[in-house]
């Protein structure tokens, strides 16, 4: 499998561990990632609020870059996935397409709409398949109770994202099960992490994050895992502030999606960038059993 790799901004900057883990897992699964140094930021939902057509045009340019190479796009962020998919969808509207073409054609960019946008979770569950994932597991996450935290834009609006139920998804839990872990079902798993208003209403935002972590904990989760680096910022990087907002310690290790896969495949914490997390993951990782030789 060969895909145009769209890491998004955070995985190239403060969330570098996500990029590291993605590359490790894709190597293990023989997924070839093609880098495009000309991809721009997806606008993260904010440019969409300020100027919808501009946002669509910027992402049409990103999609056209992959299109020229004849590749589908791999995202590793729920928000990137949402914004790129939404551009594909909105360009189905002839009026939007005309305005976007008017900006792209003079600079020699043609958007045709032939490229699919897939999040790593989709690729793992739908294209690689759970059986193939199971076959790669060398260090099952046996006994580890993990709460998946999806991130809104990977799922919703469900009729537009065309992935799975917007309120009752199960792909991540199925994946955790294939890795040997025990998935924890809790209401907060499909809720918002608060990140979109982190800079606007910090106290409200971190309160929302704290509520979801509390919910996961109340249902028995010892760790959480997310396919979105923005959720990871809310749940891990700002967890100290979330704890302040809910008024008690949270101490919840939070993994990026490819980190849980990598751990089960036998990668070391260093190879997955785990020491970069704000909330230490070592105690949870230490509880995973030994690696069986390949």
């Amino acid at each position, binding site marked *: 499998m060969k895909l145009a790799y769209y890491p998004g901004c955070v995985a190239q900057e403060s969330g570098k561990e996500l990029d590291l883990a993605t590359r490790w897992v894709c190597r293990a699964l023989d997924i070839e990632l093609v880098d495009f140094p000309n991809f721009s930021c997806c606008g*993260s939902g904010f*440019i969409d*609020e*300020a100027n*919808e057509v501009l946002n669509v045009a910027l992402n049409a*340019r990103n999609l056209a870059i992959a299109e020229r190479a004849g590749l589908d796009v791999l995202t590793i962020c729920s928000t990137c996935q949402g914004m790129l998919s939404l551009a594909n969808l909105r360009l189905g509207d002839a009026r939007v397409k005309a305005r976007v073409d008017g900006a792209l054609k003079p600079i020699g960019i043609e958007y045709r709409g032939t490229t699919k946008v897939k999040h790593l979770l989709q690729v793992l569950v739908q294209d690689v398949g759970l059986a193939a994932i199971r076959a790669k597991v060398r260090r099952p996450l046996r006994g580890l109770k993990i709460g998946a935290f999806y991130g809104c834009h990977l799922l919703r609006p469900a009729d537009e994202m065309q992935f799975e139920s917007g309120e009752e998804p199960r792909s991540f839990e199925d994946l955790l099960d294939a890795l040997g872990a025990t998935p924890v079902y809790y209401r907060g798993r499909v809720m918002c992490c608060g990140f*979109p208003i982190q*800079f606007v*209403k910090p106290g409200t935002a971190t309160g929302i994050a704290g509520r979801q972590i509390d919910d996961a904990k109340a249902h028995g989760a010892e760790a959480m895992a997310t396919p979105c680096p923005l959720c990871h910022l809310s749940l891990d990087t700002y967890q100290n502030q979330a704890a302040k907002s809910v008024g008690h310690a949270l101490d919840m290790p939070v993994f990026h999606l490819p980190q849980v896969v990598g751990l089960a495949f036998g990668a070391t914490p260093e190879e997955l960038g785990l020491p970069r997390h704000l909330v230490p993951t070592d105690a949870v990782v230490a509880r995973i059993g030994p690696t069986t030789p390949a």
Partner: protein
Amino acid sequence: MAGTTVSATFEVYRFDPKKDASPRYQRHTLELAPHTTVLTALLRIRGEIDPSLALRYSCRSSICGSCAMQVNSKSRLACETQIGPELERHGRIVLEPMRNQAVLRDLVVDQAPFWHHYAKIEPHLILDPRRPMPAGKENPMSPEEVERFKETPRCIACAACFSACPAVEADPGFPGPMALAKLYRYVVDPRDAAHQDRLLAIQPGGLWTCLRCHLCTEACPKDIRPSERIRDLKEMAIRVQGATELGSRHAVGFKANLRDRGLLNEMKLVRQTSGLFGMLGQLGQGIRVARKKPEILSRPRRIEGLDEVERIYAALDTDGGDAK
């Protein structure tokens, strides 16, 4: 399938705050056809087993919007939710009152906060004197003008979106999806004179608390898509008034930020939104994060083909919003 029934287990939330110390769940198992609606099942439970069960309903046809409740944690109209798919997914049906509104009894909530926010947006036409009502006629609109309402006039005010909204849960001052979708309807109404005032009035504490999580759009039984209309309101507010709120400053700042290098400059964004003073307030957190993630202190690389990005901005960001 006609004739076949399934054994359906319901766990119904029961609570009378005047008498009970805490809620309990009452379990009932009924033999029902899979296409039975939750409301039909509840009426059988009340009619045949326990007449003390309190619930709200009227039309039974998803028109009146009275019977919204949580069905297996999703905000739904009981009258249009069939039991079959719920049983397949969950093996049982847990029925609870809507969220974000206090329970009066069992499945009935106090909708005062929901109506309070609705009343505040002044949900009636404030006629534009420059477009007077023609004598003896309705005030006509062209089909193109009507199209701008999108799906919003279909709203039945069931409050399912209000129940599903995490921003309402975290901040009771946030008007919620329905009030904002209704507001949109008046803002784009060509007969209404107050759209600028309406946008101005809603912004402080209103618009920019929306998390764009789209849970309201999933919950809405009429496909009003409140989250998408709130997005429209945000863009209109920026175009009409410029970036006057922290929220709009963040959106406009993000737009300017990306233009520099093609990728987000995280540190600069904090400065753009919060200002230098706000940045100082986050100094401790910044140092803490930078110890593990030193990249936050450096600028991102400049993407290749940045000139293309620049030309897209030049073509499509002419009325910007940065200025008015």
